[in-house]
């Protein structure tokens, strides 16, 4: 489904952000990306989605998705290929447009990606809000983002992501900004939807506890480089790299929300 080969990226001024990163995600699989802050996890996700910051350039490597070389496509072909990709972001507040109602934001994406009529998009949005277990979905559709709780916003974004029936979702620390109790629900929700829709997920997180719950395989990242890559059971039972063991030792700290 997704193959990243020898991907390198540099920030302006030549600072290396990613160094020869290779990983692949099979259809329907959840692949974890772990590492401390600044390791380059989000940059990998952004490179796949085509939303790297202006200051960061890809210097080498390839990203193949669903048989196409994403980096070689023209902007419009790239947008076309992007229809099979979706993002579940870290901060659900800033990922929603503050001045538009939820309905407008969801149906825009659905109409654009699935070519639905306004009424069909509305129906699909409603159906997906049910599926992410939002009570009173009609009511939520009429709201502005600031009128919803963090957990609700994230459910809306998860609903939007899955509503487009993508083949791969990049989930960039989707629970970090949420309360601990909500974190568990959101995590379970993503796992359930991923299974029922058979969607592949590139799951970015600091938290090896989360990895154990949801991922099939993991890449451990440090300073833009992959130091270890293995099925999740192997990583948990016999972490090969000292850095991975250090991450494990530090894991309990990430169970708490940041101060």
């Amino acid at each position, binding site marked *: 489904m997704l193959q990243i080969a020898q991907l390198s990226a540099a920030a302006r001024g030549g600072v290396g952000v990613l160094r020869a990163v290779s990983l692949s995600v099979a259809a329907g699989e959840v692949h974890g990306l772990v590492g401390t802050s600044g390791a380059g996890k989000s940059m990998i996700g*952004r490179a796949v*989605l*085509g*939303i790297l910051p202006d200051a960061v350039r890809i210097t080498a490597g390839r990203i193949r998705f669903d048989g196409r070389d994403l980096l070689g496509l023209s902007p*419009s072909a790239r*947008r*076309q290929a*992007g*229809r099979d*990709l*979706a*993002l579940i*972001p870290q*901060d659900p507040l*800033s*990922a*929603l*447009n*503050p*001045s*538009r109602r939820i309905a407008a934001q969801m149906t*825009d*994406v659905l109409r*654009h*990606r699935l070519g639905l009529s306004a009424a069909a998009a509305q129906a699909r949005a409603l159906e997906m809000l049910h599926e992410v277990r939002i009570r009173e979905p009609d009511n939520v559709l009429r709201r502005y983002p*600031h009128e919803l709780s963090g957990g609700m916003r994230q459910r809306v*974004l998860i609903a939007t992501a899955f509503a*487009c029936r993508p083949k791969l979702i990049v989930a960039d620390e989707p629970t970090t900004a949420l309360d601990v109790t909500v974190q568990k629900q959101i995590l379970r929700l993503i796992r359930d939807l991923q299974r029922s829709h058979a969607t592949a997920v590139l799951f970015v997180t600091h938290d090896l506890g989360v990895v154990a719950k949801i991922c099939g395989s993991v890449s451990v990242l440090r300073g833009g480089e992959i130091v270890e890559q293995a099925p999740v059971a192997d990583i948990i039972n016999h972490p090969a790299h000292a850095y991975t063991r250090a991450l494990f030792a530090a894991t309990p700290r990430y169970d708490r929300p940041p101060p």
Partner: protein
Amino acid sequence: MAEAGRRLLRNWRVVLGGALVLAVLLAALLAPVLAPYDPLDQDLSAQLAPPDWHFGADAHALGTDSLGRDVLSRLIWGSRIAVTVAVVAGVLTALLGTALGLLAGFFGGRADALISRLVDIWSSFPPVLLAIILVALLGTGLRSVIVAIVVIDWTRFCRVVRAETLKQRRMDYIDAAVAAGLGPRAILWREVLPNILPLALVLLTLEAGIAVVVEAILSFVGLSISSDAPSWGGMIAEGRGVVHEAPWLLSCAMLVLLATVLGFNLLGDGLKAELDPVLR
């Protein structure tokens, strides 16, 4: 929406400013009904008559000017010119400045460099001087005044809208829209513009006040509409000449002008305070 409306009505600046602006709008709209006299009618037997509050067919509530024209009627008809300039010049300035600011902020690169340079050069001219030169070149009249205001003041919008667009462009929801495959035009119209509109509305309100003042200044120096036609600036100019014999002329015209500008400014400031926390 109804809730937002109620919030606005709890802000005293919005209420007071809105009331002042509304009063001027109504005066302009209903001038033929409200004005007791024809604003051009001269009564040479009642030159510089002082304000007179008795009720009767020949009463001049705010006195008359040196040609015996009724001051109240001229003030009411003068609001038509003020409102025309405020609305037309305000809206045109807003459209031009907002469009260029959006382009510069959203697309960046060469468009941004060009527009920003233009703004810098433009803003280095003293605006009133530029307005006088422009009107002198274009010929006097209301249309020239409006053109001058637009040509000079678009930078005010452009600067602010550009900065806000840059800020919006860095927000995650823009990335989400790009990742969702929306093209730049759809993102500009549907994602960025709705976040710029409240700001543009605030600026438009403030600009309307500025336009009223600029028109008055140009009338004052005789560069706007002909001196017969009732305009506040023209009345101030005339009133200055006879300030000792007929102080009401100058003071009434000044007061009306001040109240109008104050109204637009209060409304703009109030809207700014109210729209910001809801949307950000």
